[in-house]
C-alpha cells in the first residue's frame, strides 16, 4: 500500500520503463536502512566490527566493507565515527568506486566530489597512495569534503575548488581513472526525505543535463588513452543518465561503454530509448540499480573506457590556474 503520494507525472514517466513498477513505488516510499562502510585506512574490518558488535551490523551481500544496521540511531555520535573507523554512506553510493576500481599508485580525478564519500572510499582502495584530485566548485560543500578527508585519514587527496570543466581541461590526458558522480535531481533521495518528493518536478530534472553533459566530456578529456571513467547519478531520469552517455558517444565515438558488474548486486540494463530519443546499442551496457532489487537508493552507473587511439592532448595550465580559497576551509571552525 502506498503511504506517500507520488505526483502523477512521476508515475506516468517511470511506469513506462521501470520493471516491477509497483515494487519500485513500494520501495521508494520505505525509509532507507542505515548503512556504513569500514574505513581500512584506519583499522581492519575485523577490529572495527569488534568495536561495533553491540550494533549487530549486517554485511551487504556484494561488498565486504559495507554494512547495514537495523537501528543506526546515534551512529554519527560514536567514537568509532569520530576517529574515522567508519563512514556513514548509502549502500548504492558505495558502488561507483567499486566499478571504477582505482588501484594503488594511480592518478584519479573525482570531478564532483563533495561531500567526499566516494573520494574517501577510493582513497582506501588505493591504500593511501598515488593521488586523487578531489574537486567541488561549491565553497560550502568543499568544506564538508575537507572535513571528511581529514576524518578518514586520506593522505593521497588534493582538494580543489574549481569549475569541473576547467579542471578537466587542466589535467587533460593524464588521469588513469575518473569519477563523474554528477550533480543531479537526486530522485534517489526520496527514500531519505519525503520533502524530496514534494520538490520533484520535470522542470527540476531539466536543470541538470546541461552541466552533466559538460562534466562527462570534461571527465573524458581528463582520461589518458586506455583510462577508465565511471559516470554515475543517484537519479532515475533518463535525461540525466542514458541521454548524457549518448551525448558523450556522439562527441567521442571511440569511447567504449563496458558492462559494470558487482557480484551479488542486482543491476538492470540501461535504456535504449526514451521519448523520441533512441540511444546507441552501447548505452544498453549502462547499469541501473533499482531500489526494489537491493533495498537501496536508485543509482545509475556507466563504465566507460577511453580508446587507446584517442587524441592525447597535452595538459594545460601547468600551475597557471589556482583553485579558489586556498586552505580557507575550516579556518575558524577547528580548534587546532
Amino acid at each position, binding site marked *: 500500500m502506498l503511504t506517500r503520494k507520488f505526483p502523477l507525472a512521476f508515475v506516468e514517466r517511470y511506469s513506462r520503463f521501470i520493471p516491477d513498477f509497483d515494487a519500485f513505488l513500494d520501495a521508494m516510499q520505505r525509509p532507507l536502512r542505515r548503512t556504513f562502510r569500514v574505513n581500512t*585506512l*584506519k*583499522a581492519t574490518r575485523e577490529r572495527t566490527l569488534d*568495536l561495533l558488535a553491540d550494533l549487530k551490523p549486517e554485511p551487504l551481500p556484494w561488498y565486504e566493507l559495507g554494512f547495514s544496521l537495523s537501528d543506526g540511531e*546515534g551512529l*554519527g*555520535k*560514536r*567514537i568509532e565515527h*569520530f*576517529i*574515522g*573507523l567508519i563512514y556513514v554512506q548509502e549502500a548504492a553510493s558505495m558502488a561507483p568506486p567499486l566499478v571504477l576500481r582505482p588501484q594503488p599508485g594511480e*592518478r584519479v580525478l573525482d570531478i564532483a566530489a563533495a561531500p567526499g564519500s566516494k573520494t574517501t572510499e577510493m582513497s582506501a582502495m588505493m591504500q*593511501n*597512495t*598515488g*593521488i586523487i*584530485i578531489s574537486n567541488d566548485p561549491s565553497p560550502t560543500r*568543499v568544506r564538508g569534503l*575537507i*572535513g571528511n*578527508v*581529514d*576524518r578518514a*585519514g*586520506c*593522505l*593521497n*587527496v*588534493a*582538494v*580543489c*575548488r*574549481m569549475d569541473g570543466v576547467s*579542471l578537466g581541461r*587542466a*589535467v587533460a590526458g*593524464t588521469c588513469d581513472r575518473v569519477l563523474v558522480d554528477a550533480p543531479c535531481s537526486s530522485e534517489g533521495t526520496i527514500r531519505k526525505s519525503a520533502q524530496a518528493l514534494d520538490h520533484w518536478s520535470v522542470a527540476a530534472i531539466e536543470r541538470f543535463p546541461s552541466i552533466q553533459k559538460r562534466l562527462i566530456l570534461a571527465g573524458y578529456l581528463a582520461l589518458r588513452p586506455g583510462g577508465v571513467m565511471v559516470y554515475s547519478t543517484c537519479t532515475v531520469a533518463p535525461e540525466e543518465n542514458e541521454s548524457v552517455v549518448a551525448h558523450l558517444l556522439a562527441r567521442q565515438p571511440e569511447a567504449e561503454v563496458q558492462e559494470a558488474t558487482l557480484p551479488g548486486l542486482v543491476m538492470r540494463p540501461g535504456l535504449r530509448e526514451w521519448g523520441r530519443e533512441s540511444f546507441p546499442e552501447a548505452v544498453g551496457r549502462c547499469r541501473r540499480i533499482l531500489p526494489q532489487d537491493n533495498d537501496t537508493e536508485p543509482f545509475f552507473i556507466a563504465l566507460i573506457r577511453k580508446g587507446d587511439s584517442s587524441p592525447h592532448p597535452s*595538459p*594545460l*595550465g*601547468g*600551475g597557471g*590556474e*589556482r*583553485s*579558489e*580559497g*586556498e*586552505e*580557507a*576551509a575550516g579556518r575558524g*571552525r*577547528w*580548534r*587546532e
Partner: protein
Amino acid sequence: MNRRVRELSERFGIPREVFDRLAAIEDQETVFVSTPEVMEFDAVRPMRRGIRLARIYPYSLKPTTFGMQVLGREATRNVVDVSDEQAKLLINGGALSTDIEADNGFVLIRWQGFVVGVGFYKRPVLKSQIPRFRPVE
C-alpha cells in the same frame, strides 16, 4: 625529513619509517603531509594537499587531531591511554586530572589502541585540544 616532522616523530616516538613514503610542506604556519604525488601535482593549485599535520607557533609545534589520528598510531612516547568515558569527555572538550608518565606539553590521547586526538598535559591536568567537531555520546 622535514624538521617539523622530525620534531613530532621524536616527541611521540613515531618511527621515521611512518613518514618515509610521505612528503611534507610548510605553508602559512601549517605543516601539511601527503603522498609525494599530491605534493608534486601542479596542473592547478589545490586549496588543500593531504592533511594538516601541525600548526607552527613561535615557541611550539602543535600537532593536529586528524594528522595524529592517522600518523600517530605507532607512537611510543607521550601517549595517554583512556577509558571509554574519559575518551568521550576529552572528545567533547573536557579535561582530566591524572598522573601519567608523560612530559608536560602536547600528548596523544589513545582509546582502544586508536589515537583520538591531542591533549595538553600540565601535571596533573590533561586538557583536550580536540576540535569540537560534533558531540560524541
